């Protein structure tokens, strides 16, 4: 299958998932009732399920494309915002904002999201500083630094939870599980521009990313400014992850699983891989969330638990086959 055909198939699947997933759930609803604007059915479809599916589709796409960007930038299939501690930094920022009750917003930028963004960017820069030497990227340093930073962030998050009162602790714990259950379109509208801008900035850098696949030395000699590309890519992914994590909490492993599968399917050209990850990540997370809200119906699992359950074994499998 050519990359173009693969993209087309993904687009069709994406549309089917986005339109189909809201129709399925613990409560059977009739489409006719919902379209007729009838009370309960309409509320469930338009106010609960559709926003949830849309948020899942956007979040999954953002996580997958960020994972892709990290993997190319650091030339390692295990790199993604979660393994490198970037999501941990975002989570720490967000929890700190919740604990200190930084509310209010500057220019429509909520404090929790701003704190998550700063956390994500700070970790990205630390990792960049530690792992990139003049000989290229030190992969071992990179992954070990990611583990160390993740653990430190987790410890600080636990510390903040310990300090927090009961209500705040509950809010933090629930948020840490990672989920896309929202009511109404506020969160969807908040996340969407970040994903669109992030996707566009990455797409503009597709040649640079392709060249980075061949090695830093070769890329630089062809005219790629390594520093500019690294800063641009880390900057937009941090912004995307920060904005997203503030809303959904940490949802792990999407950025690891989805690009890995898609590379096997559409190849390694970022011209196709970037849109493929945006679509494929969305499909993956929306389907995971569909599972999360139906397998234990009427109870609804946070989708973060499900992706982590899938992701752990996948990560191990990746380590084994790479040997």
């Amino acid at each position, binding site marked *: 299958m050519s990359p173009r055909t693969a993209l087309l198939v993904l687009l069709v699947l994406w549309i089917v998932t986005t339109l189909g997933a809201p129709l399925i759930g613990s409560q059977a609803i009739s489409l006719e009732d919902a379209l007729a604007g009838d009370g309960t059915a309409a509320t469930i479809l338009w106010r609960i399920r559709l926003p949830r599916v849309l948020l899942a589709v956007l979040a999954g796409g953002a996580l997958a494309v960020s994972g892709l960007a990290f993997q190319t930038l650091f030339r390692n299939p295990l790199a993604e915002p979660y393994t490198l501690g970037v999501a941990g930094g975002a989570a720490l920022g967000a929890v700190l904002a919740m604990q200190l009750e930084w509310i209010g917003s500057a220019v429509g930028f909520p404090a929790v999201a701003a704190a998550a963004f700063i956390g994500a960017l700070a970790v990205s820069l630390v990792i960049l500083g530690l792992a990139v030497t003049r000989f290229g990227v030190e992969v071992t340093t990179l992954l070990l630094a990611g583990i160390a930073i993740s653990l430190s962030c987790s410890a600080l998050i636990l510390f903040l939870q310990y300090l927090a009162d009961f209500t705040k602790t509950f809010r933090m714990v629930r948020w840490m599980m990672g989920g896309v259950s929202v009511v109404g379109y506020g969160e969807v509208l908040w996340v969407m521009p970040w994903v669109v801008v992030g996707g566009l900035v990455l797409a503009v850098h597709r040649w640079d990313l*392709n060249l980075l*696949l*061949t090695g830093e030395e070769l890329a630089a*000699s062809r*005219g790629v400014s390594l520093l500019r590309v690294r800063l641009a890519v880390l900057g937009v992914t941090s912004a995307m992850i920060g904005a997203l994590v503030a809303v959904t909490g940490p949802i792990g492993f999407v950025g690891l699983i989805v690009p890995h599968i898609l590379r096997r399917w559409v190849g390694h050209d970022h011209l196709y891989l970037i849109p493929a990850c945006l679509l494929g990540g969305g499909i993956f997370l929306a389907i995971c969330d569909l599972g999360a809200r139906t397998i234990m119906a009427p109870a609804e699992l946070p989708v973060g638990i499900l992706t982590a359950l899938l992701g752990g074994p996948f990560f191990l499998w990746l380590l084994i086959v790479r040997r």
Partner: protein
Amino acid sequence: MTAAPILAAEAVGWQFDGRQILDKVDLEVSRGECLVVVGPNGAGKTTLLRMLVGLLQPSSGTVGLEGTDLASLSRRERARHLAYVPQIRPTRVPLTVEQMVLLGRYPYLSPFRGAPRGSDFEAVARALEEVGISGLRERLLTELSGGEQQAVYVATALAQEAEVMILDEPTTHLDPSHQREIAALLLDLNRKAEKTVVAATHDLNFASLIADRIFALRGGRALACDVPAKILQPELLSELFRAPFEIVREGERPVTLLELGR
């Protein structure tokens, strides 16, 4: 060598970790010549080449491209004149040969334009043709032999359409038959396609095979620079490599042999 040099390093030096890697090296490359830099491991060959392509800023001295300071040119401008093939190890780059060679067009691509243009694909086709690997176009780089991979890297540099090709250890990991192919390829590019070629190696016979001039580098200093027949002499070589050499065939392109000397 009367023509004005296309590429010239003037008293370039480079220090790292308090060590002087290169010390006041002067090097002139004439348009259309094939110059081979030889020297033992750690002589500073790679450092010198990286300076000649502008990947490394000399800590003293300057590198000029047709009289213009390299440092004053943008990265893309440099890449339109100088194509670099770094020392490659067996690659895990999962691109097809065509995708890889197309990346040589980077200095001519705009990030905001949808796709490479017809002229880009023509340049790729020409490069594959010149290197003689058109048949490999659809193959994955990871499936190719070391020699074929090296040929693809050379094709990528050709697609860059630069006058000067700079290659670091182009034959290090290759068996004799592939070494021979790369030597023939570089000679063709130099003689027929009129590319200026600069290569670094510690393989003296490879240097003798292709070089117009050999530049001998030892401990970051220029030892000598002359035609192969003048450089490939027992005294000079033993000074260069601190090992005894025997010249087993004299002539314009001498053949040398390492002696155990016991």
